[in-house]
């Protein structure tokens, strides 16, 4: 853009006078929240964002909820497509409808040519109304363009000659909405305000939960390509005005935010210096105004906007490509005052009008202090998802899969962003562009590097698999022991010499037969359950089938099998099912071999009615094996069993919620899939096995126990851990692994972490990550324990350690860690000799593969300085 940004800013100088004169105490106190966003190549109705929001109820407190939708449907919006795409969709919320005529006369009709106007439909359902603490405002939609003569005058008055006329009109709309908000929100006691004014997008918000927005404004069937939603948790008790709820608008974007800036006032001041005046007194409004300033006024590309918000620092900066460094440095120097400090996570939905595409963007702060999960579904329907919790993503997919059978109930990939990093930049962008008759989704990171999933599956076969399983049929290949069945399954997958359709049909038959066999007897049930968990847990070549679909189907089979076990033990059947309705009447345990299945569907997320108490109840009644079925975000599994719970086993299918196994003192907890945040806090004894990734602050303050993680850990694993924890993480961590680790001397009974730095390729083979640990803080400030990191290429450097040092990997070190690697092999099938100690096809001795990191004061005999060089 050649136009001088300063002239736009000067044109806003009148706005400075409108700065609200409020004391600090009148500032909206913002708490944390639950956020979710999805972008899809097909237009999705609003009810699909409803499910994830309802499951994240506990991240809000019913004092604010909102959604934004981008890429709407002309018929539903009651305007022709050209109007929808070209006109500004101004939505004014009237808290006092008697002000409408006045506001329309003063602003809308005076400044705009309105093509269509109508009041947004409201629900009269008494149940919906009863759920709302405050009746939401009347919202009017105006599809409008600036009156040409008013725009001409505006351009002259604000000194915008030479600016592209359409962009001048954008500024006209921005300033008009500001004037309305100032007049009716700030000066006239919050009678009305502009909810959104972007093209082809809406923002709706209420005082209440986010689902109330969808119900009240009847958005269940309104379709859009991009949706974001927000459950607000303001700290303040009484909230009567939806103005403070998220999303907040820039021009063509809506932003939701989870977190809280420490430097709200300085960002505010920075904006004031640029004549950008916040009126709603929340850090979210400030965030979106900052985004708008960098985007629309300064015309920065998205990469630079993200850099200005979440700067690349420390080691990550030095690892940037040389050509980026001067630019990033300049951005940081210019914008560091406005870089939000503290915990934050933004999800932005926007309509890139000038580039003719829609975007969904998730940006995490440099320190990754808020939870965040990204996910991608490829295929006929492409979907990009971002949420605070994985379970919210799964809830959305579950809902969407009803309408679109080609969408599996699990995403093809889940991952976390590493904030302010040179690897992914801490941000991912899902862009929807027109292609053919529809839309195409592309996912890129901050550096515009696309994320491609090599799925390599056939779509028609996948649709065959979308058919529900029926418990019938028989298939000789499911006979025998679970391991044999699994081996048979593996060997047939890639080699079936048949059409894709037949292959899928074969799998479908196989799983139906599995379910049928499981119903024969308890022994069959156990074998089939073991077979299915191997399908879920192991990495293998999916042989032209879609892996997420195989897992989806296996999970479906598990659900079918376990939901059909009896509700009372007996008749030689030692499995017993309870669900929410009979949770209070858990039968007495039947001793050895008894398995209590708790069907989590319908259980609340926490509290006395939550499944965690059902587990404790079962434990007290003598059950020693509890299986949690279809978990979808329920928290605190395994908490409250008390000390000495050895012999208890908890198995989880689905997505368990936060704080799983926190406090565990003896029992074993196994998760068949990914787990979420705060696992194993203060864990003292027992065993935790996760066949997937774990989230933030894994084993914070742990005292002992064993943990095995197949995938990655997010930020801050094992921070402040003491005692004797023994942990194997096969992937890597975002950063801050084992900060302030105090776990004694690893060779004398202390604790340690083994970090293998591996991942799996599409064929299920073990491959090394490009770097075993990408972060700049490893074992910082530690005073005990050790990290054994698999780094045969010696890629880690001293500057990552911050207090620790590389030590020699001795035979006794290897003897200490080998039993844990053997157990890791048993659990995950990662062979010590064939995978871990084999580098580039060569078998190497342990000391050439693993490196030991220990406290800087520790020095073993005969040690000079560094570990063995390769």
């Amino acid at each position, binding site marked *: 853009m050649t136009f001088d940004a300063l002239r736009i800013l000067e044109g806003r100088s009148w706005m400075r006078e409108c700065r609200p004169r409020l004391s600090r*105490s009148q500032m909206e106190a913002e708490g944390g929240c639950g956020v979710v966003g999805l972008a899809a190549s097909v237009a999705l109705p609003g009810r699909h964002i409803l499910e994830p929001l309802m499951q994240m109820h506990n991240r809000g407190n019913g004092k604010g909820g909102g959604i934004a939708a981008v890429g709407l449907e002309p018929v539903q919006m009651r305007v022709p497509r050209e109007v929808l795409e070209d006109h500004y969709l101004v939505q004014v919320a009237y808290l006092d409808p008697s002000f409408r005529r006045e506001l329309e006369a003063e602003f809308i009709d005076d400044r705009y040519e309105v093509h269509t106007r109508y009041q947004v439909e409201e629900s009269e359902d008494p149940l919906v109304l009863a759920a709302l603490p405050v009746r939401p405002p009347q919202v009017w939609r105006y599809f409008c363009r600036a009156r040409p003569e008013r725009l001409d005058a505006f351009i002259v008055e604000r000194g915008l000659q030479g600016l592209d006329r359409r962009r001048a009109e954008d500024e006209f709309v921005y300033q008009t909405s500001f004037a309305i908000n100032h007049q009716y929100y700030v000066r006239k006691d919050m009678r009305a305000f502009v909810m959104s004014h972007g093209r082809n997008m809406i923002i709706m918000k209420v005082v209440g939960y986010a689902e109330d927005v969808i119900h009240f404004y009847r958005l269940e069937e309104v379709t859009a390509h991009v949706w974001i939603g927000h459950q607000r948790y303001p700290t303040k*008790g009484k909230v009567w005005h939806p103005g403070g709820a998220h999303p907040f608008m820039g021009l063509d974007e809506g932003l939701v935010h989870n977190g809280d800036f420490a430097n709200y006032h300085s960002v505010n001041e920075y904006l004031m210096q640029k004549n950008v005046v916040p009126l709603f007194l929340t850090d979210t409004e400030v965030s979106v105004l900052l985004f708008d300033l960098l985007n629309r006024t300064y015309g920065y590309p998205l990469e630079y906007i993200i850099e200005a918000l979440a700067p690349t620092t420390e080691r990550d900066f030095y690892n940037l490509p040389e050509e980026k460094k001067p630019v990033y440095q300049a951005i940081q120097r210019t914008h560091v005052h406005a870089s939000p400090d503290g915990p934050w996570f933004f999800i932005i939905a926007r309509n890139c009008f000038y580039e003719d595409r829609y975007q969904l963007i998730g940006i995490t702060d440099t320190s990754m202090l808020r939870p965040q999960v990204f996910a991608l579904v490829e295929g006929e329907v492409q979907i990009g998802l971002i949420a605070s919790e994985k379970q919210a993503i799964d809830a959305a997919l579950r809902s969407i899969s009803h309408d679109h059978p080609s969408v599996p109930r699990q995403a093809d990939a889940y991952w976390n962003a590493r904030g302010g990093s040179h690897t992914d930049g801490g941000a991912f962008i899902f862009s929807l562009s027109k292609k053919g008759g529809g839309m195409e989704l592309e996912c890129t990171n901050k550096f515009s590097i696309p994320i491609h999933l090599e799925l390599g599956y056939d779509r028609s076969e996948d649709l065959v698999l979308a058919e529900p399983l029926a418990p019938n049929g028989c298939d000789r290949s499911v006979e025998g022991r679970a391991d044999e069945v699994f081996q048979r399954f593996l060997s047939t997958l890639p080699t079936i010499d048949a059409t894709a359709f037949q292959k899928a049909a074969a799998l479908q038959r196989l799983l139906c037969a599995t379910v049928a066999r499981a119903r024969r007897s308890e022994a069959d049930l156990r074998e089939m359950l073991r077979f299915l968990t191997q399908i879920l847990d192991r990495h293998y070549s999916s042989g032209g089938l879609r892996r997420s679909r195989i897992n989806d189907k296996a999970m479906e089979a598990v659900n079918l099998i376990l939901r059909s076990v009896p509700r009372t033990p007996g008749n030689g059947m030692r499995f017993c099912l309870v669900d929410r309705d009979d949770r209070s009447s858990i039968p007495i345990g039947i001793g050895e071999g008894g398995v209590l299945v708790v069907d989590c569907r319908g259980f609340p997320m926490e509290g006395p009615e939550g499944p965690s108490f059902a587990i404790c109840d079962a434990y007290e009644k003598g059950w020693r094996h509890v299986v949690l079925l279809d978990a979808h975000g329920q928290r605190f599994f395994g*908490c409250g069993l008390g000390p000495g719970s050895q012999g208890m086993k908890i198995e989880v299918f689905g997505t368990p919620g936060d704080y799983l196994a926190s406090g565990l003192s003896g029992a074993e907890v196994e998760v068949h899939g990914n787990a979420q945040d705060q696992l194993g806090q203060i864990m003292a004894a027992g065993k935790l096995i996760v066949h997937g990734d774990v989230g933030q602050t894994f084993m914070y303050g742990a005292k002992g126990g064993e943990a095995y993680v197949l995938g990655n850990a997010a930020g801050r694993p094992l921070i*402040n851990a003491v005692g004797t924890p023994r942990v194997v993480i096969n992937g890597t961590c975002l950063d801050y692994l084992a900060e302030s680790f105090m776990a004694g001397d690893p060779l004398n009974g202390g604790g340690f972490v083994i970090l293998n730095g591996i991942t799996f390729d599409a064929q299920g083979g073990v491959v090394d990550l490009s770097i075993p640990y990408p972060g700049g803080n490893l074992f910082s400030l530690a005073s005990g324990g050790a990290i054994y990191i698999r780094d045969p290429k010696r890629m880690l450097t001293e500057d990552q350690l911050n207090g620790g040092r590389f030590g020699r990997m001795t035979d006794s070190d290897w003897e200490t860690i080998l039993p844990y690697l053997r157990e890791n092999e048993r659990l995950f099938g990662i062979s010590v000799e064939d995978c871990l100690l084999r580098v580039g096809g060569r078998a190497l001795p342990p000391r050439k593969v693993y490196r030991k990191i220990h406290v800087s004061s520790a020095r073993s005999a005969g040690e000079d300085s560094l570990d063995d060089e390769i």
Partner: protein
Amino acid sequence: MSDDHLVCVPETTWVPSEKLKFINRYVVERKDTCISCGLCETLCPYGVHRRMEGHVKILPPYHRLCIGPSCASNDFYCVSHCPTSSLSVRNSETFSALGDVRWTTDMILATWQMAETGESLPLDHPGNVGSSGGGFDRLNFKRGPVPDTIDYSEFDMVIDLDRRGGERRRISIPVYGGGMSYGSVSLHTMVARAKACRAWGTYTCTGEGGYPKELIPYRENVVTQIATGLFGVREETIKRAPMVEFKYAQGAKPGLGGHLLGDKNTPLVAKMREAVPNTSLFSPFPFHSVYSVEDHKKHLDWIASINPKALLSVKVSTPNDVEMVAIGSYYAGAHIVHLDGGYGGTGAAPEIAKKNIAMPIEYAIPKVHRFLSDEGVRENVTLIASGGIRTALDVAKAIALGADGVVIGTAELVALGCVRCGNCESGRGCPRGIASTDPVLYLQLDTDWGAQRIINLLSAWRKQWCHLLASLGMSGISELRGRTDLLRYVGGKEVFS
């Protein structure tokens, strides 16, 4: 705990201190040149100089009764009349070396005296207020005279800590003990506090350094703390506790985690915390698992899932938006919002942080009290104040400002003989063995002796509250809550000096 507010008033007994010599304000010296003429005895109206009946020699001067060098203006001033110039009067060096503006010498001595005797001091005793020139030291009650006779059993000091409609959790005085960790104070100090709190039917707190097994017999009276380092926090300690205190911040050092320097981290302490001995142990400044209010709710829910019966207390320091923190904690499920002001902290809290960061507790209490009242939730949550609550009158003032009760720490240590030297963190710690982890030092302190001293102090305080309530025409401590109208700001610089 019983409903009967009288059951938990323990007996007081005289607990002399062998190691704490009574310190006098002035020193009266009589030289050998004295001829025992007896003139001073006849002059002094206070009885400093006395002669036993039938004895020739005058007894050594009774320093405690002397009014000091200012007596020079009186015509009965002994020094100027002594025929042999044998007498002199001067300020006591020990006296002036002891104490500081917040904990004045008078206050330390008064606390020792109450801990020794269990008898209360008059409400206008100089030991009831400090001379910091601000805060509680500038507040006074608008009260009438204290009646001559008081029936202590007629006053109700009970407060209920659970206002969320759960099981009643009443403590018989509006005071419980704050968290001081194993390591920061000695095991004997912890046990003495626990014994005293059991006798009084109130609580004490483990602090963040683990739950020593010696406290288990007192578990019904022992609150356990979850602080940012999670040291010693285990499921069994949470399950054992009637109340769990989440220490988000400490008023003495907001923005800083707890820290135990290497010297005090003896093998025993390290074992309790399961850390490496002789290394400095720092707790992080935040909970790494809690960066926002919904995380906070989740954190509380977690502990409730481990021990659903525990009261949940959220201890926070006093930032500018303390009322937002308080309401957020309430909505997250806290039974108790515990505001920790900036005056507290042992010598281990860095000097630069103490008194310099957090908002004074006297501002924070009414701010939060009013905000919670306006929000309509004040009756559903217990508001506890701490951080520099030194005397019975400080307690009463905190309650009059809007708190339900208070948490004390230093006052209990002073009752055990702390001289406020402020060297808690250095070397092996406290020379008196209160804040030490060295057995040679801490075995000085016998737990029964210590418990009775604390019992006595609280008995004296209870009597003082009775006096105060009587002079205000009240009979229950909860009537005083939020009665800022009964407080008077005392202007002028030299009021208490």
